[in-house]
């Protein structure tokens, strides 16, 4: 097979394609069902947060990952206890996919002391080291070199751990992205550069920001092996991530993954149609047919591992769990006033 053109997404960028059930590949049915449950949980949490924003209960800026859940779950599938994962402004899904608690996420977006960042950071600053999530920040591209350094530490530790940095196509326009790829390749660092290419950086399509629509060309420029996957195809993302993780853990150096996906909501907030003041192209309806949940569920149904009734039950279960967490979160306490100046340095 000829290696794919690293600069061109080709058919992947066509929203009219990849609507069919995914190929389950070697993913065992039990694992696929667990993954489906996680996708459903993330979707339910994101919908709940969107409603909270709309109602004004949540006031921090929230960048929802509805439509991008499979990329996060596929990425998280290979993470082991000593690994370290970093995210960006759109990281609710990364946090949850790694096993972070929905309640701690909801508490955080509500700014409560019981949130994952103790109410100091909100949606854009999540952290859960117990689940290998070392931090997400909204300065675009910022965690790419930080993850590279966390990989350097992992390399020094010599325990086969790796780092992952999750970022969007927009982040590849920042200088530190290119510096980090060069540094990681030169030092053969165990880092996976995980790009979720959703074709947009806020209101601008990639065609208005870059001369080519696939970011894999940057991996080639830095002698880093890459894989491009349909990011809404959970088994495909899992397989790509397994290859990337095996490569990094073996000491062979960094790996680059580009998962092509699409966000269903605006850049920030819950609205579908208006994206930071600019109307998107009219292709959202097509993208919804490339639903990561729908594609996986259909494959499981076809293979006889899931019934329509079981799917709606799983959906209802996810929604109920989230609704319960949301209700409980309303009563969670604010951080004390002393937190404002008491949390500036590591010890007060």
């Amino acid at each position, binding site marked *: 097979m000829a290696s794919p053109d690293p600069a061109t997404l080709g058919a992947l960028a066509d929203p009219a394609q990849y609507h069919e059930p995914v190929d389950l590949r070697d993913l065992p049915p039990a694992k696929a069902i667990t993954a489906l449950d996680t996708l459903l949980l993330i979707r339910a949490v994101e919908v709940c947060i969107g409603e909270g924003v709309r109602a004004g209960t949540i*006031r921090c800026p929230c960048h929802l990952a509805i439509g991008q859940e499979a990329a996060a779950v596929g990425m998280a599938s290979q993470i082991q206890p000593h690994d370290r994962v970093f995210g960006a402004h759109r990281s609710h899904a990364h946090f949850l996919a790694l096993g972070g608690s929905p309640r701690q996420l909801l508490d955080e977006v509500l*700014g409560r002391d019981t949130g994952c960042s103790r109410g100091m950071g909100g949606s*854009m600053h999540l952290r859960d080291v117990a689940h290998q999530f070392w931090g997400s920040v909204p300065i675009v591209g910022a965690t790419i070199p930080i993850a590279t350094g966390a990989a350097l530490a992992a390399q020094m530790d010599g325990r086969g751990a790796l780092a992952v940095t999750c970022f969007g196509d*927009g982040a590849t326009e920042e200088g530190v992205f290119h510096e980090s790829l060069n540094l990681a390749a030169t030092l053969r660092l165990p880092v996976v550069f995980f790009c979720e290419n959703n074709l947009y950086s806020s209101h*601008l399509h990639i065609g208005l920001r870059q001369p080519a629509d696939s970011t894999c060309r940057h991996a080639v420029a830095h002698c880093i092996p890459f894989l491009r996957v349909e990011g809404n195809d959970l088994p495909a993302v899992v397989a790509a991530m397994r290859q990337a993780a095996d490569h990094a853990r073996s000491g062979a150096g960094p790996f680059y993954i580009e998962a092509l996906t699409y966000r269903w909501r605006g850049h920030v907030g819950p609205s579908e149609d208006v994206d930071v003041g600019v109307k998107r192209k009219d292709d959202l309806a097509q993208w919804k047919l490339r639903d990561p949940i729908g594609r996986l569920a259909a494959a499981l149904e076809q293979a006889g591992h899931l019934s329509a009734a079981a799917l709606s039950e799983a959906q209802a279960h996810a929604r109920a769990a989230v609704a319960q967490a949301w209700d409980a979160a309303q009563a969670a306490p604010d951080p004390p006033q002393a937190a*404002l100046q008491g949390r500036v340095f590591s010890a007060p």
Partner: protein
Amino acid sequence: MTYADGILVALRHLLREHRECFCIGQGLWSPWYVGNTMRDLEKEFGTARVIDSPVSEAATTAAALGAALGGYRPIVVHPRVDFAVLALDAIVNQAANWNHMFGGGIPVPLTVRAIINRGGEQGAQHSQALHAWFAHVPGLRVVMPSTPADARDLLVASVLCDDPVVYLDDRALYDVSEADTSMAAVSLRDVLPRVRRAGHDITLVGTGHSAHLCGKAAELLARQNVSAEVIDIPVPGPVTDGAARVLCDSVRRTGRLLAVDGGWAACGFSAELVALAAETLPPTAWKSAPARLTLPPAPAPTNGRLERAYYPTAETLAERARELTR
């Protein structure tokens, strides 16, 4: 005219009258990022002169510097001053030093416009007011308007200035409005502090949004029979001798100084103002020790209640001023 209108009017004027002006930065084609301050400019002047850019602060800012050296008057826009931190090499190492290190007499007509956000639970990386960093650097002019007319006239002056200028506007002021005035042509180096309100008990001084707060606090104080003088410093970098004189003359009259700033206290703009007054005025001029009101020494929190405690208000400012006059 609102403050946001003032910026829009200035940009429209510059793009219409000065062919060498162009804008580059993120969000310029989206009203969401820059409010109404750039509405439809790309439609009126074309996307070749109003360039919405990739997420590349360092490159766009340094590229604008290069274009400035080539005879253009670029306006780089950073929707948050926090993002301009990625462009500090272009601003601090390059633009600020260019004229001096190559012997002088070299025009560097670059304007970096960056927007300050306060509040909205946006947190530590979207809410910083870093004007003091820029004002620290020789070779940079720093502009922080507090009124619609200054937002307009000083933006025009910034862009027409042959030195690099960091122009910082404040989202919290966008809806502030005042009666229309006609545009005044000014030179940045001649801009003096504005005495926004005369008073005899205490001098309140600040730049940008803080000057606005001082005005509000003075109204509250007037109702409590405290007569506050309000000084607005629209060009915090550099504070010229002439500007310092306006401040010191005021403190000489009132005998009290409260320097208010939307940044932090440590090595900040309020410290500069207090130092200027303390260096100039004899000890006998002071009825009370000069004081500062700033953000507490902490990053911006996102929790709403902590956020409300974080930012000074007209009330907290008036309260502090009253303490000083007691």
